[in-house]
């Protein structure tokens, strides 16, 4: 990696100030960023670590009953502490990477990076969560804008994610055998007023909602309800590990399995 300065602010305000420096780059766990730096594919002049900010740590419930997870909260903490209130989300966190990754990586980092094969964005989108930043609150439907693209402005920090807790939910993941990221994974969340289905790993546009499935499942929450529904393979990622058509097929299979797990 190239040389850079490191700042470790202890408040959101200080972090925002530090990110105002030229070529500054936030780091919230570094599970993507550090390998990128080691490969010399990025050259920030200053890394601003978001891991020392107490107000971005931990999990609580707000007065609307939402599960509020600080942006700097480790996957391992979510896996443990969200298990009682939101087991599907905790289960997702428990299966990200390996123990080393889960004890360095954070929810804020994952959501802000919006890797098209990351796990968390599917939970955020399927839950209809709200992404809180230092400046504003952004609905999940408005947050994810495509592969590695989000609504975040330069220097804006994900400080918290607020998850409405569904009646029931399930995350079904089919792994890419080398990276063990999702080749296709589907998060199905059933709320009183409908079902939300979010798909990660599959699309060239990153995480997306499968609205046809949502409509079918909202009227009949049964795996059979999406029999015959398909997603178009043409916009799907096609690579060494599977064609777009294969990924499109897996979207259906994973969705059915997620629903079956809840039936």
């Amino acid at each position, binding site marked *: 990696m*190239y040389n850079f300065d490191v700042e470790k602010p202890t408040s959101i305000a200080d972090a925002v100030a530090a990110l105002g420096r030229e070529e500054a780059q936030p780091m919230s766990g570094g599970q993507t960023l550090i390998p990128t730096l080691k*490969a*010399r594919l990025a050259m920030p002049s200053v890394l601003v670590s978001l891991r020392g900010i107490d107000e971005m740590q931990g999990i609580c419930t707000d007065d609307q009953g939402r599960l509020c997870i600080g942006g700097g909260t480790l996957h391992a903490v979510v896996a443990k502490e969200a298990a009682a209130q939101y087991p599907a989300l905790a289960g997702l966190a428990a299966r990200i990477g390996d123990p080393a990754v889960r004890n360095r990586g954070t929810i804020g980092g994952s959501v802000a990076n919006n890797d098209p094969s990351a796990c968390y964005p599917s939970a955020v989108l399927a839950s209809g969560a709200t992404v809180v930043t230092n400046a504003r609150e952004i609905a999940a439907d408005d947050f994810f804008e495509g592969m590695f693209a989000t609504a975040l402005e330069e220097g804006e920090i994900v400080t918290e994610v607020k998850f409405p807790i569904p009646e029931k939910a399930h995350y079904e993941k*089919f792994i890419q*055998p*080398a*990276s063990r990221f999702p*080749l296709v994974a589907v998060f199905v969340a059933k709320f009183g007023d409908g079902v939300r289905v979010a798909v990660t790993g599959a699309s060239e546009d990153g995480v997306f909602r499968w609205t046809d499935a949502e409509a079918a499942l909202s009227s009949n929450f049964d795996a059979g309800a999406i029999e015959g529904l398909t997603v178009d393979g043409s916009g799907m990622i096609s690579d*060494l*590990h*599977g*064609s777009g058509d*294969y990924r499109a*097929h*897996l979207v259906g*299979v994973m969705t059915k399995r997620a629903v079956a797990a809840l039936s």
Partner: protein
Amino acid sequence: MPKDGGIGASSKRREDVRFLTGEGNYTDDINLNGQAYVFFLRSDIAHGTLNSVDTSAAEAMPGVVKIFTGADFEAVGSIPCGWQVTDKHGEAMQEPRHPVLAHGKVRHVGEPIAAVVAESLGEARDAAEAIEVDISELPAVVDMKEAVKDGAPKVHDDLTSNLCYDWGFVEENKGAVDQAFKDAAHVTTLELVNNRLVANPMEPRVAVGDYARGTGDHTLYTTSQNPHVIRLLMGAFVLGIPEHKLRVVAPDVGGGFGTKIFHYQEEAFCTFAAKACNRPVKWTSSRSEAFMSDAHGRDHVTKIQMALDADNNFTALRTDTYANMGAYLSTFAPSVPTWLHGTLMAGNYKTPLIYVNVKAVFTNTVPVDAYRGAGRPEATYQLERLVDKCAHELGVDPIALRRQNFITEFPYATPVAVEYDTGDYVATMDKLEEISDMAGFNARRAASEAKGKLRGFGVNCYIEACGIAPSNLVGQLGARAGLYESATVRVNATGGLVVMTGSHSHGQGHETAFPQVIAEMIGIPEEMVEIVHGDTANTPMGMGTYGSRSLAVGGSAMVRATEKIIAKAKKIASHLLEASEGDIELKDGAFSVAGTDKSVAWGDVTLAAYVPHNYPLEDIEPGLEETAFYDPANFTYPSGAYACEVELDPETGQVTIERFAAADDFGNIVNPMIVTGQVHGGLAQGIGQALMENCTYDSDGQLLSASYMDYAIPRASDLPFYTVDHSCQTPCTHNPLGVKGCGEAGAIGSPPAVVNAVLDAMRSGGKDVGHIDMPVTPARVWAAMNG
């Protein structure tokens, strides 16, 4: 009851104490005073004309000691190839120059163009980025069949084409084979790909060059399976350093799997640069560099055909293979698809007529060479897939068809130049049927189907030729070196022994198993024997470890040297006991006079050898140290039968290995635990090839599977608990231990069983696709089932 020492005991691996406690001494642990670091600037273009390499800006960068380019190595020899293949017209293979640093052209992604030596690795890397390289990109050739077409871009402009050789074996049999196909009652044809693999030893390659200006002595520390071979190749052919001024040390090495046999440019560079810079120069490969600079394995494209008579007897076999050499000839590359592959095409069967054609092809890819099994997995895979396909086409049981055609009489001279000394293929197949619980398969299949899964059962046999190799034979076949092994056994005054062996242990457990043999021969505890290896300064010239040869060849050399020790010790004992030498017996660590109670302990005899106050000095020299070189009379021929049971998810195409059974005949066994471990490791790599591993280039020669993000190797959870049995033992007839070698069997014998099982599962789901190429990934299975 299991033995607690000596031959046949599962002695715990003594080397694991240091490996598992972080006390190993690997090449990267070696740091010399004043050491500088090298970073190689590697080509990111697969094929291009190297117009210029401007280092002027880089040389002014902080910490730079010296920067080297291809021009600095013009007077230096080519990285040599250790094997020459003669083609079917009697012509020598085409052999291109292989420069230490690219000169004139770049020919694969990852080829080193320049090398920066600096005070730190970071500074070297910074400076490398300031080197201005001007390359005119040329069209790349990646596909072998395209590469040999007229008008294809040439990897080497000074060669006539991209065809390294067109080998026919046995050329004289070709007419008879073709006639047998015309006369056949049935012909089965199969086209397949043996996928390119990356070896991925846990420890990446490292080289540290050192030069002593006061004496002119060079030392190279390197991650090698065969330091003497590196010393000879690099000293004599590349850098012109005689052996007595060059020491090569391969200390603890963290896995090799073949890819650390070869002499690499980085070794020659560090040795050369240490003198040029007058300070030690160290290179440690990153994992990313390993993917694009370690020799790859396999990469064959094959069409194979079997002719059968009306009674389902195999009457003839012919096979045509394109074998990828990559951009240059790595050390053993030409031998892998020929003499380690064509000679194995008889397999376990008495097929009377066989013809093998191999076209070796240059492409703009990393050189391809031996990887665990080296040629024999490629032979086994095509043959055992073909036999399964024959059985299904004929509607006969695949095991019955195999049994019908088994070789049953030994020795057996195959039509492909080798003579199997022993074997019992019926016994290993019987054992396999027992340990794989074939009888319970239908119930297990029903259980899988009840949960919506398909279940398949696949078997294969294998034979391998290892214990490499008889020097006179391989010399005739094109080897440019002998393949004996050496051992010096030094007995210390108080009775302990040190064995200095030319074999090299990089995971095999020699430090445990070799002492077991000597302990058995003398009747002393294993702890009294120490193994020294990996340093040309203190071991006799030996050829190293590969081809499952260490115990069969290196162990035999050690036995021969120990026999000399015992013979001399008996002379000393006869003097001490005042008895006739012919009456002296060695048992349980003591010499006794037959028929009497007179005896003298091993330690008293060894002490007498070094404190010869009472000693037959008029007849024999003092001291107790002997050397032996052992050159085998034949290859050894381990064999076995493997069974794989898979579950297949028809919705996703995911295949999981549910059971795997291996029944091997390794001849006599010194340490059953180590043998089991070797089989486990080989199976993991064979299953990895069958299900997951795939080294892939795009049509521009860019490596697509260049990291663990895209190159899948199996993890523990991808593998089942194996059932491994090696109780079928037909001892090798020509080495003193009766051993055959077990290091590669698992990787050789497992891929066809996996694919046969997957196809069986697909058939049970109503889909008979005939063949599916490795790796059998979920995407491929799904595509095949829905094609």
